[in-house]
């Protein structure tokens, strides 16, 4: 049978989430026989990125839970026990999907002279540094209004993250990608601005030295004050005497002793340390340090975003695993595990029994018998497709906004806004991801932020048409809509109307605090799902810990060779490869021959 897998492994990894994939790569890299399974037909589990169609399918599939399991008794020996896998720890809840625009059929016919009205589309299209011809032809298309049909038709141009995360330029993941040489599989964009909400409007936080000095709203006195404070966080760290007496106090209390102006205090609290008034001094200082440490490496801000979405990153590690011989099989479900003598001896999947030394398993697949806590923490997520940026600029931006709670019942929200150049959405649109800790449902938890920054009301096509008829062409149709709309938008400044939401999705995801019970076999290793942090450090550190538990004396993801460094069996003069460029000279000659032959 085609899908019969080899039956013996050193490591079987179940689930292709971030942690699982890093562990799989690390084990394969040191020569272990790795099998990597996922019951889904896509990579990433709850870390996945989907195009619009894929996301619809994912939502649909959640409604029909998978069925297992075949009879396994014939695959067991007398002293063994079979523990059935379960997906009860990866439950996605409270999914609410909404459209705010119409189908094509309901749209009014637009006159062709309307070309200048596509303000947002043009802004986005003009700023990209390089544009192919294809993009130019698409730009003409964006003159059309966005409809449900059009978004569905262009489904491939969307990359929608379940767990959007940023990378600190000097965070664990960036360092690992570089040191392991896995970085070559992925491409990134730097987050171009960190925004904050101050005095009733969004402003860009000056991050780089150039930004700070170019910034006109910060006085010279404040600049010096900011520099001093940041330098002490950066150079001395949380254990420095500077912070004596504040160990048990909040970061805010510490800042209050520094006689900062409100603006400087706001920048430090809400943009750099991303702290609430409950954040401890230690955490605040450490976060400030982390932020500053990552500045100046890859761009204007300390953050990077993976092109095509966060879901690319587990796949990069999977590829390395495969390159070093790991076996990959999607659409293959873990039916259960075979336990005997206090160890996990094998897994059962698709009527096969696969022997293993170590089982690495994502939290969505664990047999309930070996789980102690079922996970209290959950994540509230909101995803929005909008017609413009929350903070329009001269060029397309990739924006991070940290928004602290307005009331004690609320949770701080992180907002990431992606433009077309990240491949998150087509030209003319933006993709907004909001994330916070769950207290009620995703929609309720995030409502205050949605209301603050977005216009999430159904767009009446006829209102837009009327507006188009009666206004000058320099105003975009949606803006007209807002002006004509309810009074609530009146107090917003006219030059920056809120983005119109075209489509939204709310959902609750499980967070990562599930633990194995003490009775769990010692060779079973649990990988968490996406956590609430902004970056991937948690997953990287968890993967390192799992790898070390399995192979304490081995290197964790040593650098993989570059193509030029690979000398294949049978190749001439494999000896001197470390001394000089012999193999390359060989290739060089070959190139010359080729060149001559071709000419």
């Amino acid at each position, binding site marked *: 049978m085609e899908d019969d897998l080899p039956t013996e492994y050193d490591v079987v990894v179940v689930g292709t989430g971030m942690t699982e994939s890093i562990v799989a790569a690390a084990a394969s890299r040191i020569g272990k026989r790795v099998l990597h399974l996922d019951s889904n037909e896509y990579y990433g589990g709850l870390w996945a990125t989907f195009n619009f169609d894929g996301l619809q399918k994912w939502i649909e599939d959640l409604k029909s839970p998978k069925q297992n399991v075949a009879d396994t008794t014939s695959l067991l020996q007398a002293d063994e026990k079979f523990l059935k896998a379960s997906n009860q720890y990866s439950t996605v809840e409270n999914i609410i999907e909404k459209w705010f625009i119409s189908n094509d059929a309901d749209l009014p016919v637009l006159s062709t002279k309307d070309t200048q009205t596509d303000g947002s589309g043009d802004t986005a299209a003009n700023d990209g540094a390089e544009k192919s011809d294809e993009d130019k032809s698409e730009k003409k298309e964006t003159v059309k209004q966005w409809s449900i049909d059009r978004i569905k038709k262009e489904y491939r141009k969307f990359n929608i993250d379940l767990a959007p995360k940023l990378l600190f330029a000097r965070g664990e993941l960036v360092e690992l990608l570089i040191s392991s040489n896995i970085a070559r599989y*992925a491409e990134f964009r730097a987050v171009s601005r960190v925004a904050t909400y101050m005095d009733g409007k969004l402003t860009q936080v000056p991050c780089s030295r150039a930004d700070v000095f170019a910034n006109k709203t910060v006085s010279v006195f404040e600049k010096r004050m900011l520099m001093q404070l940041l330098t002490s966080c950066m150079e001395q760290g949380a254990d420095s005497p500077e912070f004596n007496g504040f160990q048990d106090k909040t970061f805010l209390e510490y800042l209050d002793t520094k006689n900062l102006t409100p603006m400087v205090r706001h920048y430090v609290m809400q943009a750099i340390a991303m702290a609430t008034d409950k954040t401890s001094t230690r955490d605040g200082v450490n976060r400030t340090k982390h932020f500053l440490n990552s500045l100046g490496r890859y761009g204007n801000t300390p953050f990077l975003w993976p092109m095509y979405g966060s879901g690319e990153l587990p796949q990069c590690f999977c590829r390395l695993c495969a390159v070093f011989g790991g076996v990959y099989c999607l659409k293959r479900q873990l039916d259960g595990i075979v336990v005997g003598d206090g160890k996990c001896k094998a897994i059962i999947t698709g009527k096969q029994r696969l022997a293993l030394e170590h089982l690495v398993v994502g939290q969505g697949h664990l047999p309930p018998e070996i789980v102690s806590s079922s996970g209290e923490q959950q994540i509230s997520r909101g995803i929005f497709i909008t017609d413009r940026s929350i903070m329009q600029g001269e060029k397309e931006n990739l924006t991070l906004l940290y928004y602290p709670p307005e009331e004690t019942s609320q949770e701080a929200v992180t907002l990431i806004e992606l433009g077309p150049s990240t491949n998150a959405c087509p030209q003319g649109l933006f993709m907004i991801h909001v994330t916070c800790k769950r207290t009620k449902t995703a929609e309720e938890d995030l409502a205050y932020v949605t209301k603050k920054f977005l216009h999430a009301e159904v767009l009446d096509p006829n209102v837009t048409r009327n507006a188009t008829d009666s206004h000058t062409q320099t105003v975009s149709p949606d803006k007209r809509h807002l002006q004509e709309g309810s009074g609530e938008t009146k107090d917003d400044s006219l030059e920056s109307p809120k983005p119109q939401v075209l489509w939204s999705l709310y959902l609750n995801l499980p967070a990562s605090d599930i633990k194995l019970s003490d009775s769990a076999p010692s060779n079973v290793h649990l990988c968490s799902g996406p956590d609430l942090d902004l970056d991937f450090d948690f997953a990287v550190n968890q993967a390192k810990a799992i790898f070390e538990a399995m192979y304490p004396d081995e290197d964790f993801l040593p650098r993989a060779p570059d193509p030029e460094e690979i000398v294949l069996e049978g190749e001439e003069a494999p000896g001197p490869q470390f001394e000089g460029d012999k193999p390359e000279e060989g290739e060089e000659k070959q190139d*010359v021959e080729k060149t001559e032959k071709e000419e």
Partner: protein
Amino acid sequence: MVVIMVTMASRSTAQRPNGSTQGKICQFKLVLLGESAVGKSSLVLRFVKGQFHEYQESTIGAAFLTQTVCLDDTTVKFEIWDTAGQERYHSLAPMYYRGAQAAIVVYDITNQDTFVRATTWVKELQRQASPNIVIALAGNKSDLGNKRVVEFDEAQTYADENGLLFMETSAKTAMNVNDIFLAIAKKLPKNEQTGSAGTSGQGRRLVEVEGQKTTTSNCCK
């Protein structure tokens, strides 16, 4: 701000005796697709290293290989990605296609199933990959003509209908191996933007710049 450099292209500026590399250098990502054992890796090894092994094991540890071809005033550098065996259980990660400007879909002329499978790979590429991707169809193992089951004309017709380059190749005898890569190189657009700095999707790759670790943040200090 630290400037990112991509080290992979370091060799591509090497000067050749005949001075043919004076022109511009374009770098392209090329992906190989096709069923297991049709000879994908063998084609690459023949092209890149000039070698052939009858019992080629899958290429452990080779994420991709690079090779340059020279066209008039342009040096085309291919970054050739192999499936690394992920195709075996139909589990190829979509990141594999990302930013690929060219693909070679390989089948085995002695095995009809591999041809059928090749057509599904072509569909997959048309669905998943960039719309401008240059696709070549390679009927490999043409040295085994006595065992042929996929007719040349059948494949040629299919290729014509789908706008693919097509050649029958033999990694064993080297027939048409360089030629198919050369044909792809000719068909690829070689304007200024393509292939610069080793990026394909207009993002940036992360590379440790020498001495960078000692460079402290240039901000706020």
